[in-house]
């Protein structure tokens, strides 16, 4: 695991995630996007490792989390995707878990414990 990417239109969330992740994995490379389009462009131009992690919000304007996963699959990209959302909607959870690329569904707020488990999950 070398890289963690955060995709969320909410700056606050990204800020929290960055600080928390750095406190757990100080060596990790961290990149946060508020635009999913921007994120896709970047991801398809770097060498993505299989155990790299994306933390993905679902509710975003322009392109929501599911649309992002579709595009992500279309580009034949592969890494571990964790959904990070506030949504309590069970339909969202069900749909997310049906995607093969999705490794977990995390309800905000993100915690240190959850971050620490990223390694063991792999």
């Amino acid at each position, binding site marked *: 695991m070398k890289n963690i990417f955060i995709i969320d*239109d*909410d*700056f*606050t*969330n990204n*800020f*929290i995630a960055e*600080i*928390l992740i750095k*406190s757990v994995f100080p060596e990790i490379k961290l990149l946060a996007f508020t*635009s999913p389009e921007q994120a896709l462009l970047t991801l398809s131009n770097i060498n993505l490792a299989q155990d790299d992690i994306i933390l993905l919000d679902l*509710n975003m*304007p*322009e392109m929501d989390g599911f649309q992002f996963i579709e595009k992500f699959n279309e580009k034949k990209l592969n890494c571990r995707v964790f959904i990070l*959302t*506030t*949504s*309590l*909607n069970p339909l969202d959870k069900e749909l997310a878990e049906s995607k093969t690329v999705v490794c977990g569904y995390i*309800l*905000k*707020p*993100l*915690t*240190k414990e959850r971050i620490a488990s990223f390694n063991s999950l792999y």
Partner: protein
Amino acid sequence: MDINSHFKILIVDDRLENLIALSAVLKKEGFYSDTALSGSEALKLLLKNKYGLIILDVQMPEMNGFELAELIKGNTKTKDIPLIFLSENSFGKEFSLNGIVVGALDYLIKPVDVALLILKVNNFRKMHLVSEDLVETKKTFEKKAILAQISYEDLYFSLPQEVFIINKEGLIISINRFNTLFCGLKASELLNRHFSISPFLKEILGENNGNAILRYFTEDSKLKKNIEFKIERIDKTIFYGHAVITSAIIEGKFHIQVSIYNETEIKKQELFLKQINDSVAVKTGASYFSEFTKFCCEELNVKYALVGNYIKDQHSIETISFRSGNNELPIYKYNLKNTPCSLVLNGEACVYPKNVQLFFPNDEDLKTFGIESYLGMPLVDENKNPLGIIVLLDDKPMEDALQKEKLISFLAPRAANELISARVNSKLKKSEERFRTLFEQNLAGVYRANLEDIIIECNDSFAQIIGFNKANDVIGKHICELYENISHPNFNEKLREYAGKLTLEEVIIKKKNGENVYLLENAYFIYNKLGSEKYLEGTIINITERKKIEEKINESEKRYRGLFEIMNDGLLYSDSNNIILMVNSSFCEMVEYTKEELIGQNGYYLLHDDIIRSQLIRKLNDRKEGKSEQYELEFITKSGKRIQTKINASPSYDPDGNFTGVSSLISNITEQKLYEKKLLFSKEKFESVVNNINDGLFQIDLKGKVTYYNQKFLDIFGLSVNCMDDLSIDSFTAKEYHQEMFERHFTRITGGEVDEIMHYEGIHKNGNRIWIESKIKLLKENNIIIGTQSILRDITERKKQEDQLNKTVKELNNRNNELMQFNYIVSHNLRSPIANLIGLSTLLNVPNIKEDEKSKILDYIHQSALKMDDQIKDLNVVLATRSALNEIKEKVSFPLLIRSICNTFSEQIRESEIVIKTNIQDDASEIFSIKSYLESILYNLISNAIKYKSNSRTPELMMEISRQKEFFVIKMIDNGCGIDLNLYGDYVFGLYKRFKLDIEGKGLGLHMTKNQVEALGGTITVESLLDKGTVFSIILPV
């Protein structure tokens, strides 16, 4: 089959060499024989087998020939077997008498003259055949004999066949028609002329010289000729007929009777059946069907004929033979959907004599082949499961379609089984069956006469036949003393005529008491060693009784009586006093009496009650006046049952034109009547039911015209009986349903599936729309579809309730969706700042946190709290618009409202340089509505037009407000950047949906707008093109 196999000879002789010699001789001549060395052995064989003749030696040890003969004659089983005695002694009177007493029929002197033996055996064989035939026909004969007692002269002129009596000179002396259909000439033109005047008669009788044919009949008077012929008449029509040529003895003279039966119609059918049968009898499989279709095309005169296999799982037909005239078309496969064949495969024949395409508009094949008429016959197995189909198609209307259907139905079983159809065969046989000559059994008389015509030997039977008691009474007497010859030539004449031939012929003599005797005579000559004739020997059988009957029959109606008998209809002939003179078996069966019980009785008293009798007496007067009539009549049978008949009565006349009686053709229509009665009853019942049911009912024909309706139907549509003429289904159906109704009826007619129940709007006479629920059913008459029947019900009230219910359900659904949305907002949007607050506060506990980060955290906490506050406020707004009940409606002026909104936007308008235009119709400037909502709606839409302007052109916004009947239509047309409706179509009005990240917004405006429009009872829709502009259309009720 060898005809001698039934005629086996038993030879009895005590000397083996004789047996071997005799059986060898007989075998050479084709006779089968058994041999016995003694009387007892012979008796054993006689018990075991059946013999046609016994040849026995007189001189035998143990039991001599006479003793054996006595035993044979004493046994009922064997008494009728003729015997030929063999004797070594020269023939003597006593000896022969001895033989005759015990019933021997013939004798031979040893050493046996082989030629004579064969002659005699042959003789007996013929007699044997005659008597065998007799047994077979005796039963039939007895039946016929009863009828023969009646004189049929009266019927002569009303016979169905044309009868020509021709005398020995070939002159026509009698005809039973004034105008002959067959010759095409009047009787007066034919009578007393030579038959060759009619080319047809000439053709039938075969020879120009009538004498030749007459002699032919004279020589063998029992021979009759049946000729089936086909002639082309002057008018080019083909006449099929059946001629029966018989000899008739009238006043002791030979005549020829030619009876012509018009069988044109029957023949045509028969010929067709026969041809088909003959040509396909030995064929199987494809070639059978190929012949079959060929004949269908040729004989039934249709353009196409096909036989096809039904492929059940594909619901299609594959042709086995598909023929157009002489050409076999390639195998063709078609789906049954929408075709007339699909109806046929339900098991019933279908006939569309014309316009078949009209019935099956979706059948492309009918169009391709240009089919106009259609006949389909299913081929089914014994369990009625469909196997295939016979189809006749034509590009013109089909003539005689029902008759063709009948013909094909005859052929269908054969085709289905690919076996020779028993029905076809039996039908053919029936028509070919002819009367057989009847014989009467009698003890044979044997005689021997010399060249001076003096009887020198005979048996008692011979003497009795010619009118004496004993053989001795006639022996030694000249033939002239015994009887007068009528057709019997003197022996000398015979000798010259038949020298050396064995003959079997019918002769007539007149006994001394004046009685005529008919004889079947078998005569031959015995030669002396020099080869010149010595004497004549003969055997005679008395056939007088039979001849008498035959003569009677021949005289008048021998031919057609048979026809009467096989007729299904009853036939009754009564004289002018209603005494029944003749009936046929069919009639007897009908009334349950036997012929004997009927003939001679007064039919009116026997077969009818008082009321009908009185009617009949009046009818008899009509007959006497020469009227023919068809009417229905009730008969009472022997068991008291009443049967209904249709009767065809016509008067009969004798040749002088005097009324002689009435001949009646009677068909039993009891069942038919019963059925009609039932039908009438059920029709009445049906009518009372349909007029009393709560549902309307109407029937329409194929053109959509109403042909039947009940009272309730009238009630539903407010119609009255007198406005029902020429009423079509469209006249009481709302216009928008016309097409659907048409299709629905048509689909039904063409055998397609339609939904059982249909709802549509009808038009009441007062102009109101009413909701109708209808069920549709196919109407058939004689297998031909004549239209549809619909049962209907006024469900307007129910529909109203349903509508109300639907509205409520829709509202509830909306509410539910809103609640779901609210839930979603709570779960996501509201949770979002809270989650952030939790996350941020956790960060404060993270060790080694930098100072600048700390202040950032605090800043974010503040922002999140503010965001949460915002959202709670938004929710408040959303919830507040949910119910418009508390708001007060007032008059709102659109121009004023728009001006005030534009004022609040003055800064943005100036900045964006947007051009705002309005086009408000005069009658649409004021609306009675909730002002705050209207304001909010317009505010949001104007705000959006400014926010989402295009940067590449001068922004414009056009507001059009117009009024249409009960609605206001507000259109907001901008030339902004547009919305990709393919991408966002579903979400445009969704809560917290935003489409432009670069432009500030919460995704609340359009959602609120929609809520408010709906709260006012209106609708909002959007049309948009990316980078072209957007149009919001709002419809508000007045």
